[in-house]
């Protein structure tokens, strides 16, 4: 059995007085491809953000390896203000900050990795364009490239394909599957399309009634019906 890479122990999360999730106990194994599924407002994004340390937990604990190696993160909404005059390449280079810190310039190898990350998503020809000039789907691909460029062990994505066309969505999901199968990357992803997800994996982290559990997709579908 694979070692556990993320552990949630009796986690409770609330926004003010509104409890969103309670008693969450999850052990996510290394190398898992785990979609988070459930109705709107069930806490999928909340738990994802809590795992990343972006949302405080009311009680319980979450253990992750992100102190040593940050996760690759693709947020739900486009979060870069269009006022910023930054290029596509500069957005992807941001993903290399853990290696560069304050002063280190970009090495040739790092520039090539950034270009390769864009190439894998079909975006390399746009790398000198200003980020704000791109369409919603293209921006999402650039943010995915940013998440992948530092070669993280864990990739966390919140509806990463919501603005992509069908072909682009298939390509991105296939690419994620390749990273999972061939390189053993752990992938956590909020995704609403159970049918699409069934082609990629057998288990899901199902959210309902303020709780979350890892179940097989067959059981999730049966319960949903």
């Amino acid at each position, binding site marked *: 059995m694979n070692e556990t890479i993320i552990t949630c122990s009796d986690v409770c999360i609330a926004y003010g007085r509104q409890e969103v999730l309670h008693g969450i106990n999850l052990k996510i194994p290394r190398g898992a491809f785990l979609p988070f599924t459930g109705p709107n407002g069930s806490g999928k994004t909340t738990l994802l953000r809590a795992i990343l340390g972006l949302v405080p937990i009311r009680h319980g604990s979450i253990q992750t390896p*992100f102190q040593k190696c940050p996760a690759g993160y693709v947020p739900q909404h486009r979060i870069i*203000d269009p006022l910023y005059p*930054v*290029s596509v390449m*500069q957005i992807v280079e*941001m993903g290399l900050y853990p290696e*560069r810190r304050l002063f280190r310039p970009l090495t040739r190898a790092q520039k090539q990795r950034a270009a390769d990350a864009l190439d894998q998503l079909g975006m390399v020809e746009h790398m000198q364009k200003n980020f704000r000039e791109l369409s919603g789907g293209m921006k999402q691909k650039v943010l995915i490239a940013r998440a992948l460029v530092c070669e993280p062990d864990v990739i966390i994505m919140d509806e990463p394909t919501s603005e992509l066309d069908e072909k682009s969505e298939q390509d991105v999901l296939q690419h994620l599957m390749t990273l999972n199968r061939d390189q053993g990357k752990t992938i956590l992803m909020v995704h609403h399309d159970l049918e699409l997800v069934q082609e990629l994996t057998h288990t899901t982290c199902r959210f309902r009634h303020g709780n979350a559990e890892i179940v097989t997709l067959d059981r999730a579908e049966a319960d949903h019906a």
Partner: protein
Amino acid sequence: MHDAMQCLYCQFPEALTAGLLISAVCALLGVFVILKRAVFIGITLSEVAACGVAVSFLIGIPPFVGSLALVLGAVSLFARPYENQRIPRDTLMGIIFIAATALTILLVSKSGPGLMEINAVLYGDLILASSKELKILFAILTPALLLFLCVLRPTLYSFMDREGSKVLGIKTWIWESLYFLMLGVIISAASQIAGALLIFCYLVVCPAAALVASKRIWIVLIAAPLMSMLATFIGMVVSFNFDLPTNQTICMTSCILFAIISTACWIYRKVIPITHNH
């Protein structure tokens, strides 16, 4: 004109040097003020600084100390994240601006010297910069500028995408707080020499011109201080030649420069044909 420029430097070397230094540093930080969509922070902190000077006169402490203390207090309120608050940051800025302006006048009305005399002290006039003030300016602005250049990368990332930066291990609260702290210290030091209006102008007008002119952040960060220094120099030469108030002439020169650059960029975009990608 050449004689006029030489005369300007001979007669007011401190003013020219102070103007160029303040304009360059404020313009560089001003790029982030605009990108953070917190434009009114400049005028608010300048008024808070003036209020601090008024408090200093009343209680008998050095003006810079009083000004810095109040500015740092205001900065500590602005440095918090405001995305999930009930009121936006610029609303709080407006409230503090009103309070600082009103309190300054109330305090001055109770002070010994009259309002007109204290105005020059509170609000500054670049042309009156002394060598002592210039030394203080160098001592404060130069290290602040060097520090800002050192932390430019994490500051840019923290401002551009706070959550993405946190996930990458960037301590966003440190860089954001440091930025606002530097801004507060610079405004405290500079506003007594240059005045609130001119500081606000330096933080906004030429950085805005640079953002209009370029789509590349590094070019913007170089162009903004250069444009600001150019506007300062031209403004001072014009004010010296035509016996006009220095601060206001520099402000108008900056605004004219902004208008020229914006118009030129607009014409360029209309004239250059659109390239089609097939």
